[in-house]
C-alpha cells in the first residue's frame, strides 16, 4: 500500500487551473520522480503537500487514511517534510538550533540543554552520514549543507514522506552525489521520497517510479525501467500551439543588426553568451527556470554587471552596468517581476506610464501635468489598458493590465530594442493574446524584440529565432520555423534526441 496517495487533487487560482485531477501514490522505501515543464503544476502539488495551498477538490491520504493539510503544521504532523531548492533557515542561529527550534531539549526549570541539543544534532548528521558542525552559525552554509540541515530537521520530526523540490538545481556534482546517498539512506529506513528535478540523468539514476505532469494534469506514472528519456520528453510536451499566436515566425525580412552581444560572461551566472538581434525580429531566449536567461538580459540592459564581453546597440558599445546609458541608446527592459521591478504600485496609472520619460515631458525642469496625462492616455489607449481613472493607484489593476502598463511605460520611450522577460506570466488567456499581438506589431514596425519565456508554445508561436540556454550556457540556436517543442526541450535539458 502506498504510504502517501494523492487522490484526484485539483487546485485553481482565479480562472487558472494549476492542477486538475492528479492522482498518484508514493511507496515506502521508494524514490518517486516527478517531471514536467515549467508551469506543469509540480510546484502546486508540492505546496499542497506542504500545507501551503489547500486542494479545491480531492485529497491526500496517508496509509489509506485521508488527512487534511490546512497549514504547514498539519503537514509536519502528518509526517510530510518538504525540502525546498533553497531552504529558509535562521541565519543568525546555530545549526543545532535551526534543527530543534521550538523543540529544544530542556533540562531543569525548562532551560534549554545545549549539550543535549548538540549531541542530538550530531546523532542526526551521523545517521545521514554527513559532517556539519552543529555549533556553527547557519549564515554562510552552502545550499547543499542547508538542505542537509533541513533533512536533519525533518528526520528529527519523524517525517516519513520527503518531498524534494528541485533540490539539485543549485548543487555541484559532489554535492549531488552526497544528496543521493542521503536520499537512498532515507529510503532504506522506509521513507517515501518525491523527487522533482529537471535533470533526466538524475531522475533516471535515482528514481524507481516516474510521474509526468503536463498543463496541470497527470499524464503517466511508470517504473523508470520501462521508460526512455525520449518518451518522457514527448509526454512532457506534446501539445498543440493554439491560435494564441498571431505571428508567423520568419515572415518578416529582418533588417540591420541592432543588438549585438559578444562573449558575455559573469562567474557563476552565465558564460560566453553571444547573439545578435536584427530590426523587425523577435528572438526568444528559452530554457528552464534558473538557466540564466534573466541574468543575461539584466546584464545586457546594465542592471547587473558582467565580467567579460561586450554589448553593442546600433554598432556602439554600451558601458557596462549603466541602465541609463542603455535607455539612452534605445534599449528597454520589461522585467519579470513587475510588482517589484516594473511599477511603483502606489503611484497613479499616469505617473507610472510616464516615469521613464520624465525629461521630454518637463518644461523648465517642472513636470507639466497636462503633458503627463496626454502621454499616458495615448499609450493606455493603444494598449487597451483597462483602468478606472488615470489617477487610480496601479496596485488596483489586474495582473494583465499591469503588464500592459509596464509595456506602455517602456514603449513611451520609443525604444529600438525591447527586451521582455516572461511577458505573459500569470496573466489570463485573453490578455496574453493581446500582449502577443502587440509584440508582433512592434516587430513589424521594425523594433528588435528579445523575449525571455519559459512557455514553449509562446516561444514557438512568436519567435523568428530561438536561443536555448542551459546552466548558464547558450546550447542551441534554432530558426523559429524549424524549432519544435522536442528540439528546444532537448537543448534545454542537455539531452540529445535518441540518446539517454
Amino acid at each position: 500500500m502506498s504510504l502517501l496517495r494523492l487522490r484526484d487533487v485539483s487546485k485553481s487560482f482565479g480562472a487558472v487551473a494549476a492542477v486538475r485531477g492528479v492522482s498518484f501514490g508514493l511507496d515506502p522505501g521508494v524514490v518517486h520522480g516527478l517531471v514536467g515543464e515549467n508551469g506543469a503544476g509540480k510546484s502546486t502539488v508540492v505546496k499542497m503537500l506542504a500545507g501551503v495551498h489547500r486542494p479545491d477538490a480531492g485529497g491526500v491520504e496517508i496509509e489509506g487514511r485521508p488527512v487534511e493539510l490546512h497549514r504547514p503544521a498539519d503537514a509536519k504532523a502528518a509526517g510530510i517534510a518538504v525540502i525546498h531548492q533553497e531552504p529558509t533557515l535562521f541565519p543568525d542561529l546555530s545549526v543545532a538550533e535551526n534543527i530543534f527550534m521550538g523543540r529544544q531539549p530542556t533540562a531543569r526549570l525548562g532551560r534549554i540543554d545545549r549539550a543535549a541539543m548538540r549531541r542530538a544534532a550530531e546523532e542526526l548528521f551521523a545517521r545521514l552520514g554527513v559532517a556539519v558542525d552543529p555549533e556553527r552559525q547557519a549564515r554562510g552554509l552552502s545550499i547543499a549543507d542547508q538542505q542537509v540541515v533541513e533533512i536533519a530537521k525533518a528526520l528529527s520530526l519523524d517525517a516519513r514522506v520527503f518531498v524534494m523540490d528541485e533540490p539539485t538545481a543549485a548543487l555541484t556534482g559532489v554535492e549531488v552525489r552526497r544528496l543521493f546517498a542521503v536520499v537512498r539512506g532515507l529510503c532504506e529506513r522506509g521513507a517515501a521520497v518525491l523527487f522533482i528535478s529537471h535533470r533526466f540523468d538524475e531522475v533516471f539514476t535515482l528514481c524507481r517510479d516516474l510521474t509526468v505532469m503536463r498543463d496541470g494534469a497527470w499524464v503517466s506514472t511508470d517504473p523508470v525501467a520501462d521508460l526512455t528519456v525520449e518518451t518522457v520528453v514527448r509526454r512532457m510536451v506534446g501539445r498543440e500551439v493554439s491560435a494564441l499566436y498571431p505571428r508567423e515566425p520568419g515572415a518578416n525580412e529582418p533588417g540591420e543588426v541592432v543588438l549585438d552581444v559578444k562573449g558575455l560572461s559573469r562567474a557563476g551566472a552565465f558564460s560566453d553568451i553571444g547573439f545578435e538581434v536584427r530590426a523587425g525580429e523577435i528572438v526568444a531566449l528559452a530554457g528552464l527556470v534558473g538557466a540564466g536567461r534573466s541574468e543575461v538580459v539584466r546584464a545586457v540592459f546594465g542592471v547587473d554587471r558582467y565580467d567579460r564581453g561586450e554589448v553593442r546597440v546600433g554598432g556602439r558599445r554600451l558601458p557596462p552596468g549603466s541602465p541609463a546609458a542603455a535607455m539612452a541608446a534605445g534599449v528597454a527592459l520589461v522585467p519579470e517581476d513587475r510588482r517589484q521591478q516594473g511599477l511603483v504600485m502606489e503611484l497613479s496609472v499616469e505617473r507610472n506610464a510616464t516615469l521613464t520619460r520624465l525629461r521630454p515631458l518637463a518644461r523648465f525642469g517642472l513636470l507639466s501635468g497636462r503633458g503627463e496625462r496626454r502621454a499616458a492616455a495615448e499609450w493606455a489607449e493603444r494598449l487597451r489598458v483597462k483602468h478606472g481613472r488615470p489617477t487610480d493607484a496601479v496596485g488596483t489593476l489586474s495582473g494583465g493590465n499591469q503588464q500592459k502598463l509596464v509595456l506602455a511605460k517602456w514603449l513611451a520611450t520609443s525604444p529600438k530594442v525591447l527586451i521582455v522577460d516572461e511577458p505573459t506570466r500569470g496573466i489570463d488567456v485573453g490578455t496574453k493574446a493581446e500582449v502577443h499581438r502587440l509584440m508582433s506589431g512592434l516587430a513589424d514596425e521594425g523594433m528588435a524584440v528579445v523575449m525571455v519565456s519559459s512557455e514553449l508554445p509562446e516561444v514557438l508561436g512568436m519567435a523568428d529565432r530561438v536561443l536555448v540556454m542551459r546552466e548558464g550556457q547558450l546550447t542551441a540556436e534554432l530558426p523559429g520555423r524549424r524549432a519544435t517543442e522536442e528540439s528546444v526541450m532537448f537543448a534545454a535539458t542537455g539531452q540529445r534526441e535518441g540518446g539517454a
Partner: protein
Amino acid sequence: MTALRARRELGVLLALALLVAFTAADNSRFLSSQSIRDVLLSASILVVLAVGQTVVVVTRNIDLSVGSVLGLTAFATGKLFVAAPGTPLVVAVLAGVGLGALCGALNGALIAAARVPALVITLGTLYVLRGVDHSWASGEQINAADLPRSFLDFGTATVLGVPVLALVAAAVLLVVATWLGSYRVGRELYAIGSEPAAARLSGIPVGARVFLAFVVSGALAGLAGVLHAARYGTVDATVGSGMELQVVAAVVVGGVAIFGGSGTAYGAAIGALLLTTIGSSLAVLRVDPFWQQAAVGGLILAAIGLDRALAARTARRAAARSAADAAAGQDAGRRGEREATHGS
C-alpha cells in the same frame, strides 16, 4: 557564533574600561565609590529600558513609545501615592509594571491588527501616550514632599554600598537575558527576527510572540517609570521625553542588530552603562556638553561600522569556502559526466 557574539560584547566592555581608565587618569575622584554609585544609579533606569528594548529589537521590531510609557507610569505612581499615601511599595511597583504592560499590549495589538511596521505604530503611541500624560497632569507637578519617605528611600538606598535600583536593574537583566538565551520562547524571538518567513514555516506563532515582546518591553518601561519616580521624587508630564532614542542608541551600541536575530540583553545593558558613563566622564573631563552628544553619535556609527565589518568578513569567508567547494565539486562533476557518457 557564540564566540563572535561574546567578542562583540567584549568590545563594548573594552570601550567602557578604556573610557573609565582615561577619565580616572585625569581625575582620580572619578573612581571614588560615591561617583561609581552615581553612575550606577543613573544607568539603572536606562538599563531596564534597554533590556526591554532588546526583547523587541531581536524580533526585527522597535518600540519608540518607551519614553512616553515611562513618563506616564512615573506620573501615575506619583498620583497613586498622593491618593493613597499608605500604598505598599510592592503594590506600587506592580501597578506601574501593569500599566506599562497595558501600553505594551496596546502597541502589540495595533501592530498585529494593522500589519504596519512597529516603527510607525510606536511613533504614534509615543505621541498619544505623551498627550494622555499631559492632559492628565494638566500642568501639575508631583514633588518629593508629596511622596512617602519609604518610597523615596527605595530610590536612594544601598545594600553593601550598591544602590538598590542598580540591583533591581541587574536582576531584570539576569532574568531577561536568561529567558532570551536559554528558553524556547526566547530563542523563538531570535528566530522571528532572523528570518520571519522561516519562523512562520516552522510553526512559531509569530504574531503572538511579537505581541509578547511588546508587552515585556512595555512592562519594563513601566517598571522604569516607578524607579524614575523613586529616584528623582519630582514628576511632571515631560518625564522621559526623548528617552526612546537614548534607549535605541544603547541597544545598538551594545551590539543588538537593528535587523533582528542577534545580540544579547547583556550587550544592551553594557551599552546603556557606556552611554551613561560617557555623560559623567565628559563632565569630569570638562568637555563641552555639545561634544557629549557628538560622542554618543560617533559611538553609534562606530558600533554599526563594526557590525558591518564583522558581517562582511563572515560573508567573505563563507564565499571563499563555498567557492573552493564548488571548484572541487565541478571537477568531480565533470568526471562523473564523462563516466556517464561512456556508460550509455
